[in-house]
């Protein structure tokens, strides 16, 4: 039996599946210096980025003279100072580190001023003179698609396209008794983590070390090496805990660490680079705005027969992760249902606005907003209950996804939906609400459901793997070196529980260390909800290797067969006679004395995925996490304000390594979904962001919080990961917007197809309908 099978059937688990209090919480409560900005020391130089004020312009001339004259300014760096490649494009090489001949959005980095202190850096940045020749700009993706539109990149304004051709949609629609067609739009969402992007670069002889909050240490290493013209071994990346990341730091730190590194190498001194809040708003990646035309057909007995979908995702000035985001959306376009005939056409479109990129859900919230709105509209047209209609089409083992992938295991969406609907008494609740509304004048209540699925790990069949290292120290303590970053999600805590479970020691024995590219092999980024599943499996691999050594040494010490060794609570004993035992620490010491290996690397390799570029069909993801949200809302018809009273949630998580950590992720994801649905939106004027602060970019406060009274965890194990666990970090966000808008539809009868659903929109829609009625 391989170690994964062993773990799946392991009995008497003492940590896995149990709630533990977070070992990282104490330092955070005490406010100990953990974060990158806390590591700023005297003597570090400050780097300040000089940014484009134009949405689209040619750079005619850059004059560093005045800036260099500012006392304290050491150097001003521009594209010409880059020793390696001036290229940081992720999917497509379209994005320079520092703009060369052209700028494509307001906020694009053009130069960097390096100075002895913040004041001088800022002053210098004001004095770098850049002469531009303004070009016509395009801000709307539909405008950008027109042949007359200004060309943002030489290749044109379409960064990439995607397709799915499954079955025959025309035939499908002919079979349909009801057809619903709508266009949905979603907005640009900002991550709004409390800690802005921050990086420290420390030069050494022919080497540079990066310390930062991050999600992708090895990508940072690759980018820094590329920009500096270094070999990868000459760049060391050390991860520090992040004050929130949500995808933003996956993209951004690899784009700014090379700037800090360049400054450090050029000056020979450590450099500190930190975005101010307005820079984060103006120059960091955002969730892709979308325009989705969605046509769905079903038979009168409630079977989905066809969907035809056109997806436009606006990538802004650069493609960045866009091709992957669009690909993911395309592969999930029909929702967690079997639809025999699917046609999807996706376009990723450039505009002269800040680039889009990774954000919790990675393209799935937008497409699910459309798909799950359609499901309710179909149900309404069919006169069917939304839950009942979904259950008729829901994915089950053996059925196929949007892209024709047969899902064979860990497909717990039906169970999740049934259990949640039952637990909250969906039917009854719905009737109660309808009764309430008949009496109520001012406030209307509503309840709505939405389902979602989300493939774990990387998109487009990109290879995926992970790595980790475990060291058994001579005193029996254990150092766990994870490859997954600490964003607050607690992934490494999950890994540590796995390691402790396998080695039979309490969690307190494990010292958790974040990634360091000089300490472990590449573990790939912390995104795609892959942290726990891939990283945890690598951790399990390493721990299982060491367990074999511990067992062997213990069997020698206790003079018994290896099969008879059991380890629990750091006590190693002989199963038939537990009085024959030794403490874990003694065995640990003996490992060293007897020359056993006391450290191990662990690896995880994702199953192969593939797709046919001509049809888009194939195996998109190794496994999916499934999630169901039910939202209850109250609409104030006087003001249009929507209060989300509660969101109930259920998910198939494979195996809950820690139910509490999962619940924490759900809470946070739902809160972000709430903002996405009701208030958050980046507003521009001529390509410049107007609400570049928390005053006018409105995220939920404590008084806006949503209660999450019901959490149902379904555990249909995934055999490809340690203990069967799947990732959950993004999941609960995805069905939040449609669950809320479906509830608003239930309350008011009005379908909102554009996010955010602001009080204004609700108020005027209600007013319009009153007008129509009277």
């Amino acid at each position, binding site marked *: 039996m391989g170690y994964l099978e062993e773990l799946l059937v392991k009995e008497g688990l003492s940590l896995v599946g149990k709630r533990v209090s977070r070992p990282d919480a104490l330092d955070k409560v005490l406010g100990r210096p953990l974060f990158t900005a806390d590591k700023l020391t005297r003597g570090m130089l400050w780097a300040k980025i000089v940014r484009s004020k134009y949405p689209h312009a040619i750079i005619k001339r850059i004059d560093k003279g005045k800036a260099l004259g500012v006392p304290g300014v050491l150097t001003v760096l521009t594209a010409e100072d880059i020793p390696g490649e001036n290229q940081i494009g992720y999917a497509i090489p379209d994005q320079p580190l520092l703009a060369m001949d052209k700028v494509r959005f307001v906020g694009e980095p053009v130069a960097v001023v390096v100075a002895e202190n913040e004041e001088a850096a800022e002053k210098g940045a004001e004095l770098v003179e850049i002469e531009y020749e303004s070009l016509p700009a395009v801000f709307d993706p539909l405008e950008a698609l027109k042949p007359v539109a200004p060309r943002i990149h030489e290749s044109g304004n379409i960064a990439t396209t995607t397709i799915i051709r499954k079955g025959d949609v025309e035939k499908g629609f002919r079979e349909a008794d009801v057809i619903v067609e709508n266009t949905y739009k979603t907005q640009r969402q900002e991550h709004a983590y409390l800690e802005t992007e921050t990086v420290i670069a420390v030069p050494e002889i022919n080497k540079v070390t990066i310390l930062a909050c991050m999600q992708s240490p090895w990508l940072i290493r690759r980018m820094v090496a590329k920009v500096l013209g270094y070999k990868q071994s000459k760049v060391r990346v050390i991860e520090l805990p992040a004050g929130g990341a949500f995808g933003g730091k996956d993209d951004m730190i690899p784009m700014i660490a090379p700037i800090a590194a360049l400054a450090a190498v050029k000056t020979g001194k450590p450099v500190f680079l930190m975005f*101010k*809040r307005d820079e984060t708003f103006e120059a960091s990646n955002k969730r892709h705005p979308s325009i989705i035309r969605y046509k769905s057909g079903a038979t009168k007995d409630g079977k989905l027969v066809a969907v035809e979908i056109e997806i436009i995702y606006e990538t802004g000035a650069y493609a960045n992760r866009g091709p992957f985001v669009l690909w993911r959306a395309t592969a999930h376009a029909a929702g967690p249902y079997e639809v025999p005939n699917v046609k999807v056409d996706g376009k990723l479109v450039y505009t002269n606005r800040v680039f889009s990129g990774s954000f919790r859900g990675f393209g799935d919230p937008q497409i699910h907003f459309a798909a799950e709105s359609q499901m309710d509209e179909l149900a309404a047209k069919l006169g069917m209950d939304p839950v009942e209609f979904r259950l008729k089409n829901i994915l089950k083992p053996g059925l196929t996804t949007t892209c024709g992938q047969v899902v064979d295991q860990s497909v717990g969406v039906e169970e999740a939906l049934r259990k949640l609907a039952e637990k909250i008494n969906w039917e009854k609740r719905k009737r109660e609400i309808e009764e309430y509304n008949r009496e109520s004048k001012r406030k209307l209540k509503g309840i709505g459901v939405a389902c979602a699925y989300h493939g774990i790990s990387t998109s487009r069949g990109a290879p995926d793997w992970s790595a980790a290292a475990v060291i058994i120290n001579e005193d029996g303590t254990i150092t766990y070196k994870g490859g997954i970053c600490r964003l607050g999600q607690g992934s490494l805590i999950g890994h540590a529980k796995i390691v402790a479970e396998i080695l039979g020691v309490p969690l307190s024995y494990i010292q958790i260390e974040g990634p360091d590219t000089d300490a472990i092999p590449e573990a790939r980024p912390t995104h795609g909800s892959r942290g726990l599943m891939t990283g945890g499996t690598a951790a399990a691999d390493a721990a299982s290797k060491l367990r074999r050594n511990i067992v062997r040494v213990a069997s020698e010490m206790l003079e018994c067969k290896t099969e008879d060794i059991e380890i629990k609570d750091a006590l190693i004993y002989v199963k038939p006679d537990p009085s024959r035992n030794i403490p874990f620490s003694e065995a640990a010491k003996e490992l060293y004395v007897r020359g056993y290996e006391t450290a191990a690397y662990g690896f995880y390799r994702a199953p192969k995925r593939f797709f046919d570029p001509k049809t888009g069909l194939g195996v998109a993801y190794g496994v999916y996490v499934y999630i169901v949200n039910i939202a209850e809302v109250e609409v104030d018809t*006087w*003001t249009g304000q929507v209060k989300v009273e509660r969101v109930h949630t259920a998910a198939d998580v494979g195996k809950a390594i820690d139910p509490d950590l999962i619940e924490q992720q759900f809470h946070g994801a739902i809160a972000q979904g709430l903002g996405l649905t009701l208030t958050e939106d980046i507003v521009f004027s001529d390509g410049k962001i107007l609400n570049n*602060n928390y005053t*006018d970019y409105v995220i939920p406060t404590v008084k806006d919080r949503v209660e999450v009274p019901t959490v149902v965890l379904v555990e249909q194990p995934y055999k490809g990961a340690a203990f069967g666990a799947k990732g959950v970090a993004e999941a609960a966000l995805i069905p939040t917007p449609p669950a809320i808008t479906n509830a608003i539809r239930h309350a008011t009868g009005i379908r909102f197809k554009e996010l955010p659903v602001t009080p*204004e929109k609700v*108020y005027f829609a209600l007013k319009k309908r009153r007008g129509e009625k009277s």
Partner: protein
Amino acid sequence: MKLIPPYRYLRPKNLQEAVEQLGRYGEEAKILAGGTDLIPMIRDCLITPKTMIDISFLDELRYIREEGDMIKIGALATHSEILKSPLINGKTGVLAKAEKVLGATQIRNRGTIGGNLCNASPAADTAPPLMVLNAKLKAISVEGERIIPIEEFFTGPRKNALKPNEILVEVQVSPEPEKSGSSFIKLGRRRALTLSVVSTAALIVMDGVKCRDARIALGAVAPTPVRAKETEKLLINKELNGEVISSAAEKVVEEINPITDVRGSAEYRREMSKVLTKRCLLEALESVKR
């Protein structure tokens, strides 16, 4: 967003000295109270004061007291102090209601009533309640004292009637009259820590079923906070009921001049002015009965 540039820092020992310093530096100086408006404005490069006169140490301007038939609030009284004051809660409930939803605890602990008024934001939350209380503002300069009725105080967005050498020292209000009721409603973009999209204060004085006096003021719907006098006229000497109030509230749109910005459209603000005025009047009426 920029660092705060260097400036000359002056800390007067008493009001007299503050007045003298302001007299000397006038235009180039800014009074610094709680700083909650001033610091973000400096960081946004909206203003760059050469001199700051820090009056935050002048405890003589930090009081809330009753004198005769007047309640006097020192310009440096913080929003928290006002919110917690039994005097304010007991006698000018409309102001207390506004203070409760102004900013957040940290802001209320620092921000002062003087700063809120002098900053003269159309959305200043203490303005509508002070307008329906017919507040009088006392200002001092080297030339002497003067009283400015609050209605004359706001002259434009972020503009007030103070001369460059004047300091606002006191806000004076009469208690809400007998048989009166009042309310304040704020519509923001979320449930806390939010600037007003529209705010409304109302105070009505009843004589049996008849309305003897009505005062309505709105925030964030014009270049300054505004009194809605024409709307008030539709209520005075009327028997108040839902219908009278509803139809009067419609009038309020004629007295405002809202703009469209990131916080809301002019159209929505117009609609909400009506809705809030109506609700506010109904709540005020309700509170008389109690």
